[in-house]
């Protein structure tokens, strides 16, 4: 679930995690009604809540053990520690861990009951880029193990890299749903070829040949209709005898999709930083 702060991502997953009562509508997890079967659902899901915290004065292993004992069956804590690459920190107090390591412990705890669905609510918010990549690696491991992961994020890059399916959410509504590729194809503006700092000779040829062009910041931008376009552009440039600095092909991102769908950028979409 990709959306700006305040879009309703956490509210939605907290309803699914049976942490929050909904005011209207219906929600089912694994076919179970969240209002009636909360306990059954809790046995079958694993959750990393937003701003996750465990017990400061228990070690990593003890924390995993503690939360595991809440369920009828649990995976071996040492196996989880190995999967999360936490071996060196197994006997360290939780309070002494860095932010990235704490999140990894959180993911380990979310897996302790071998859940059918794992909810990760903004697992990388507040982490530095290195720690963020560590968490990504862990999430990719979960995917490889065949786990269903529901991830919320306001980082476009994160959604694009990690997701099989993305739901773009804004102001409590889903605007688009599908694989990143599908969403971009459906809502994006298509690929473009950008020629930077082309001289007059080049520009004359290009303008005549591609009347649907755009010029922005000294960049000459041509929409690519099909894959032959690029070859034609290069031939045309070559034939013009002029000079240019750089030629580049861009494809649209989820950011562009969000911009097109809402008229705003993801980063500035929320009303307040702490709305969730």
């Amino acid at each position, binding site marked *: 679930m990709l959306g700006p702060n305040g879009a309703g991502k956490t509210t939605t997953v*907290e309803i699914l*995690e*049976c*942490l*929050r*009562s909904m005011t209207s509508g219906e929600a089912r997890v694994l076919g179970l009604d969240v209002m009636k079967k909360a*306990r059954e659902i*809790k*046995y079958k*899901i694993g*959750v990393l*809540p*937003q*701003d*996750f*915290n*465990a*017990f*400061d*004065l*228990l070690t990593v292993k*003890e924390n995993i*053990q*503690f*939360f595991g*004992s*809440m*369920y009828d069956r649990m995976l071996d804590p040492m196996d989880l520690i190995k999967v999360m690459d936490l071996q060196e920190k197994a006997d360290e*107090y939780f309070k002494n861990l860095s932010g990235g390591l704490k999140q990894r412990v959180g993911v380990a*705890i979310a897996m302790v009951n071998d859940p059918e669905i794992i909810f990760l609510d903004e697992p990388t918010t507040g982490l530095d880029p290195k720690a963020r990549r560590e968490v990504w690696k862990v999430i990719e491991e979960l995917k490889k193990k065949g786990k269903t992961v529901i991830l919320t994020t306001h980082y476009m890059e994160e959604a694009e890299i990690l997701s099989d399916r993305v739901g773009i959410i804004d102001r409590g509504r889903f605007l688009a749903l599908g694989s990143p590729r599908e969403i971009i194809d459906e809502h994006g503006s298509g690929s473009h070829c950008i020629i930077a700092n082309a001289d007059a000779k080049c520009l004359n040829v290009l303008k005549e040949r591609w009347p649907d062009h755009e010029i922005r910041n000294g960049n000459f931008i041509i929409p690519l209709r099909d894959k032959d376009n690029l070859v034609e552009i290069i031939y045309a440039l070559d034939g013009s005898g002029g000079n240019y600095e750089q030629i580049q092909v861009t494809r649209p991102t989820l950011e562009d999709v969000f911009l097109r769908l809402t008229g705003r950028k993801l980063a500035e979409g929320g009303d307040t930083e702490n709305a969730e």
Partner: protein
Amino acid sequence: MPNRILSTLISSVKMFYRSKSSVFWTIAFPVILILIFGAIFSGGNGGKYNIHIQDLSDSQMSHKFIEALNQSEVINVIDVGKDVNISEYIRENSPTAVLIIPSNFDSAFIPGATNNTTQLKLMIDPTSTSANVITSIVISVSDHFNLAIAQGGEIITLKRTDIASEQFNFIDFFLPGIIALTTMTTTIFWTVDIQSRYRENGIFKKLMTTPLTRMEWLATQILWQLVVVFISIATILVVGIALYDVELTLDPIAILIIISSSALFSSMGMILARFIKEPETAGTAANAITFPMMFLSGTFFPLETMPEYLRAVAQVLPLTYVSDGLRDAMVYNNIVGATNSLVVVVILAMIFFLIGVAVSRWKVE
């Protein structure tokens, strides 16, 4: 289900002994309390009242009178010299009670003398709590002398024995109060602290995602508080026995009262923490609740010395029944009284636990 409760308890024990400040305060608070009370009640002049006497008569009879006061065993006579200016003496020494024996004191006792009266002058600080006691002792000794002069026989005599068995000393009477107080403060402050801290740092949210129910959580917290309370009480008894020859032991009724009162006060803490969100404010609120109870529940001062309306207040404070019950059980050996208090505490504990369960939310708001 027992698995969940057991493992929460085990984790609590681990976190407890790893937190040096928790261990320190669980042990230090009761030790400080008992040291203060021990110092107050075991030292000094053994609960005697000072009376400053200027004996202007300095005769056989006045000496006998002073001797009689001394024999009352509650008066500690301090001699003010004959030549001292008494108003200056009062200004300099701020005595509670000054008795002046006039110079004609002995002449009043001469049989057949014409002027057969003499007047003792007792100056007393009316704001002092001992004023009434001192006055009545001086009056009773005077009456005794009057009777002897009139050659009247005593019809009523009085023999005093202590109500509880004589092996107890003063601190024994206060110990149940200290135990009641420790039970209350330990459980309320721990509960409020844990509840508000876990809510703030998100541990609650994580716990809510597991199959742990709020009933199991409340039960676990109450059980754990009980462990902490017994650590505190054991400390009190060990220090009391080691330093002040405390003779008290916990009998089954006392233990039941302690168990039900920790459940009662833990539940109170839960309710408090439910409505006060910030950990800092929660501590202040816990103080606001425990402080009046500390002073109005007969823990430090006997209820009999309080004005009627405060006694009425004490009747509705749960700590009153805990203190009373423990004192009845541990000091007076009053099984009926102790059982009555126990019943009240158990009922209150059940009511507060149910309110605690009812108001606590196991959901994000």
